[in-house]
């Protein structure tokens, strides 16, 4: 590698670290600064003050804690349901030969070819008839439905990597297909499960549109919708809003620190196969 090339690479790395990292650095450190420092004319890179007053106000004066809990609940349930539905479906699609499976598979991927807002109006009417409007279950169903096609597609690569002999041997040992799936195949596709879990959790965690229409009671609001309300209410109380942003980032970052590697593998492996 020539010196000029190395310099270019270094400059590129610095550019992307700043592009992605700097906003988050400012937000997280800003949430601990006193108000005077936040609105200072010359922004400080390294904070000069430390306070928890924004967090105190956020958690005592608004229903932020409730929103956070609702979001965690909805995202966790959506993740679980996505895994429960996607694994058997992916197994059926990629390990079992049946007529029409190619057509069905293509139909499923069409789920991303229309604007999701299209289904919002009819879905609201259907959910109203079923008594599902204003329940967190409605959000779980919607989030799962939108995560499923991608989840099934992602698991494909992981199922494809398992040599057929392993499954064959397990079946000859006398296990019915479901036991083989549970005991032999699931441990082999663990990274794929991690990738799907992250995708489902993140989709549910960030979803705004459906949550804003399908939930009417404030106490059932998820974080994106609740926080949007707080933003409208505390327009220029930047400290409070920065604290809210930091707390909203925290859970996904923690999850990503645990199994983020798997997600990246899942995404890249999925595209390879």
């Amino acid at each position: 590698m020539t010196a000029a090339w190395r310099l270019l690479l270094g400059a590129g790395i610095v550019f992307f670290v700043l592009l992605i990292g700097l906003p988050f650095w400012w937000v997280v450190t800003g949430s601990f600064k006193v108000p005077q420092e936040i609105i200072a004319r010359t922004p400080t890179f390294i904070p000069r003050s430390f306070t928890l007053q924004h967090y105190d106000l956020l958690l005592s004066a608004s229903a932020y804690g409730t929103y956070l809990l609702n979001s965690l609940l909805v995202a966790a349930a959506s993740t679980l349901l996505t895994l429960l539905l996607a694994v058997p479906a992916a197994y059926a699609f990629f390990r079992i030969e049946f007529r029409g499976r190619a057509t069905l598979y293509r139909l499923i991927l069409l789920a991303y070819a229309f604007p999701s807002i299209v289904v919002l109006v009819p879905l609201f009417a259907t959910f109203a008839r079923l008594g599902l409007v204003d329940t967190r279950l409605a959000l779980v169903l919607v989030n799962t439905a939108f995560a499923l096609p991608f989840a099934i597609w992602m698991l494909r690569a992981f199922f494809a990597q398992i040599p057929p002999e392993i499954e064959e041997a397990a079946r000859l040992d006398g296990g019915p297909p479901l036991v083989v799936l549970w005991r032999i195949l699931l441990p082999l596709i663990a990274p794929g499960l991690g990738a799907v879990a992250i995708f489902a959790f993140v989709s549910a965690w960030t979803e705004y549109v459906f949550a804003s229409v399908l939930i009417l009671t404030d106490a059932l609001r998820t974080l994106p919708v609740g926080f949007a309300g707080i933003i409208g209410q505390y327009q220029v109380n930047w400290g409070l809003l920065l604290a809210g942003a930091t707390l909203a980032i925290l859970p996904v970052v923690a999850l990503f620190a645990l199994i983020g590697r798997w997600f990246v593998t899942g995404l890249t492996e999925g595209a390879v196969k």
Partner: protein
Amino acid sequence: MTGAASGRQGRLAALLAAPALLLLGAVLAWPLLSAVLLSLQDVRIVGSQGAFVGSANYEKVLADPAFWRAARLSLGWVLANAVLQTALALAAALILHQGFPGVRVARTWIVLTWIVPTVVVVMIWRWLLSTSGGMINPLLVSTGLAERPVGFFATPEAAFMSLVFINSWRWFPFIALMILAGLTRIPADLHEAARVDGAGPWQRFARITWPLLAPTLAVLLVIGTLLSFNVFDIIWLLTGGGPAGSTRTLPVLIYETAFRGYRVSEAATIAVLSTLVLMAFAVLATRSLALSGADR
């Protein structure tokens, strides 16, 4: 495989796939069909009944300048995002494909912008770009790059470009990882052979990386188009379609028509028209990709 065995296999497959298909049918397919029905009726408030009016809604929408303006804005939105997003993603993917200390950490954490809620993304950038306080404007003014704070959302053009930047900022890492996957698929010995033959980095990129990566990029362009067309929350939360309707893309128009204007059937009509265009685009694009042998 004997007939009986394949029949049993088929039943097992149906049983395993049924729960997922049922949910997809109930939450996606059925409402999609209902939207088509709604567009042929005259329903005003969500959940109420309306008379069958045939193609009246379609005639009304197609004669409405607001629809065509939103369609033009959506086209501009998709194109601008495609350019910025792909350029950033390609550069990031090429960097992540190199070996440098910390590359594994970088590959994982690059998607940080995608895993936080859009409402947080919106809040972050509204603060950073704010004219009163914020971060970017004080920096621009104190370094002398701007005389007075820049109104990033004040004029129609500025608001549109700011939104494109923020949306691309959120999505480019996701696309970058997909491109990275395409890059790792290119056999390393091709590069090695070219290096032995004396090809420089630029030549290797132009002769090996680019041609072999083109199919991946084409597929991602289709996916990216669908993704950016659908973006609603970033626009709605940042500008609400303004100023002066300059960021009212089709999804925003659909939402406003249904939930602000209480003209549900008209909203469904716009939605059906958008879906038809998007699906036609997706089918045509994937077909031409398949013909050029890039499907795989």
